[in-house]
């Protein structure tokens, strides 16, 4: 082995023998390295997920309120009750709106950072996206509670620039409106948008950094207008980044139950239902079935993402 190359063999210590045994057998080394993290995630995480999945096949006795430990699809059937189906569809709509808006807000930031920012400017952009991404979730939600309150800064600003009429008109519109911003879907989507936009910027920027500038030039040389270059060259190449970002914005919105408690209308979205079903209602099978829904939705999403090569942009 390696010692043969050298003039003097290294001292033969127990540690050396262990090391040689490991270096000689890559498989054993790999297994030893992987065992602790795999055991942790395999037992604690996957084990819990399977326990949850198992629970979703049980049902609850309507009279006694206790869990019946017999496999049944009854609980899944309940998901398709009109009221519950409504919740799932409403949540998907909110998640879709948040994802689309996040793509629109994130794209200019990502594009500027990838194509035009240099040196210090680039570092500044990076920090400017990382800071809000990592800063406290609850503090960010709280900031919007302050901003959206009736007497808060958004209302004050609208009045100051003479747009309170427009705000009132928006609030009186169906679906997006409500008595005030803090109890409307507009408010809820705004808060989600604020929370998840940084998660969209990073993968989109990573995808844009990889766009060869020669392609853009070729498109320009062949007579494409900037809008055509954007539509036919840049956007398709940025798509994996957009899909990767959507994984976050979608998944995070599907699983959130705190934002809709604090900002938004009284009708529930998926996360809240899971929370109340397992807590106050004590209906763990239904909560489990409800939480299988986002897992399935994300499963479909991740499969599509894998096809578009989005994982390389993560």
């Amino acid at each position, binding site marked *: 082995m*390696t010692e043969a*190359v*050298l003039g003097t063999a*290294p001292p033969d210590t127990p*540690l050396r023998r262990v*090391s040689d045994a*490991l*270096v000689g057998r*890559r498989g054993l080394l790999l297994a030893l*390295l*992987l065992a*602790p*993290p*795999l055991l942790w*995630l395999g037992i*604690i*995480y996957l084990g819990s997920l399977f326990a*949850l999945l198992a629970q979703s096949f049980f049902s609850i006795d309507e009279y006694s309120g206790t869990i019946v430990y017999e496999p049944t699809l009854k609980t899944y059937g309940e998901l398709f009750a009109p009221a519950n189906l409504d919740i799932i569809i409403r949540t998907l709509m909110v998640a879709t709106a948040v994802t689309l808006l996040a793509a629109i807000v*994130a794209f*200019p930031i990502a*594009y*500027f950072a990838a*194509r035009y920012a240099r040196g210090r400017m680039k570092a500044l*952009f*990076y920090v*400017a996206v990382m*800071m*809000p991404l*990592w800063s*406290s*979730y*609850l*503090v960010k*939600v*709280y*900031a919007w*509670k302050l901003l959206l*309150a009736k*007497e*808060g*800064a958004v209302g004050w600003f609208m009045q100051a620039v003479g747009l309170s009429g427009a705000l009132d008109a928006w609030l009186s519109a169906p679906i997006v409106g409500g008595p005030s911003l803090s109890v409307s879907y507009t408010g809820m989507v705004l808060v989600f948008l*604020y929370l998840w936009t940084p998660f969209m*910027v990073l993968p989109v920027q990573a995808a*844009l*950094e990889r*766009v060869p*500038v*020669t392609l853009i030039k070729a498109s320009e040389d062949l007579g494409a207008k900037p809008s055509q270059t954007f539509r036919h060259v840049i956007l398709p190449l940025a798509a994996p980044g957009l899909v990767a970002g959507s994984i976050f914005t979608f*998944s995070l919105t599907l*699983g*959130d*139950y*705190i934002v809709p408690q604090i900002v938004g209308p009284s009708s529930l979205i998926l*996360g809240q239902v899971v929370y109340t079903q397992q807590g106050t209602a004590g209906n763990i099978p239904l909560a*489990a079935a409800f*939480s299988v829904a*986002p*897992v399935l939705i*994300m499963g479909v999403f*991740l499969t599509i993402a894998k096809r578009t090569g989005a994982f390389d942009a993560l």
Partner: protein
Amino acid sequence: MTLLSARRSKEGGPIGLKLGAAAGLAFLHLPLAFIILYAFSNEDRSFEFPPPGYTLRWFGVAWNRPDIWEALGLSIRVALVSTALAIMLGTLAAGALARAKFFGREAISLLFVLPIALPGIVTGIALRSAFSLADIPFSFWTIVLGHATFCIVVVYNNAIARFRRLSPSMIEASMDLGADGFQTFRHILLPAIGTALLAGGMLAFALSFDEVIVTTFTAGQQRTLPIWMLSELIRPHQRPVTNVVAVAVIAITALPILAAYYWTREGETVAGAER
């Protein structure tokens, strides 16, 4: 050639793009500035804007609240233990998967990112139902169990990026010169990946310190600082005190994030880097 070397970059970009980027960044940063402003407001019943007057009084009130100190202490202890576990497990996973190719590798790497790819509420309720099935009472350790699970991926991501940049010839050279695996780890690998681990650890700390969605499911009577804040958000007792705590949380999480940035930025010029 990439976008980086675009000739047009000298122009600085179209004005519309600049405005869009600037507006986007303003949207991401202004809300937190308001929190800081409100911490000094002397209005204690509503969120009136602009605040009618300014005071430092609430900083003193918050300082003398034992419940806040207790929650802060618990949060820091949980974050430290979870981070330590995540650094160990995440580094092992990254070291194993960085260059190896074997059957099932893709599935395993998916498993490591799953805790952040799946909604937090799923992780939370899954852990809670597992705890109740296994009759594990809620405690400090059940919180840590949940936190470490999603912190692993943060360390893993940071470490695997650095492992991939580290040239394998560095390790081969060390072994050829007669160092054993442990010496190579101690003198070659650790210095090269150290800052990436620190950065991952810092982010894991910030993530754990701030986590609330999983924690509500895995904590019994314990109140971490985010849980304290959540209860104040839903049923406010003293709004100005919450404002002050919010500012403190901004400060406590900003430091590790900046440190993590600093260490990974420095890490771009690691010895033996391939690029």
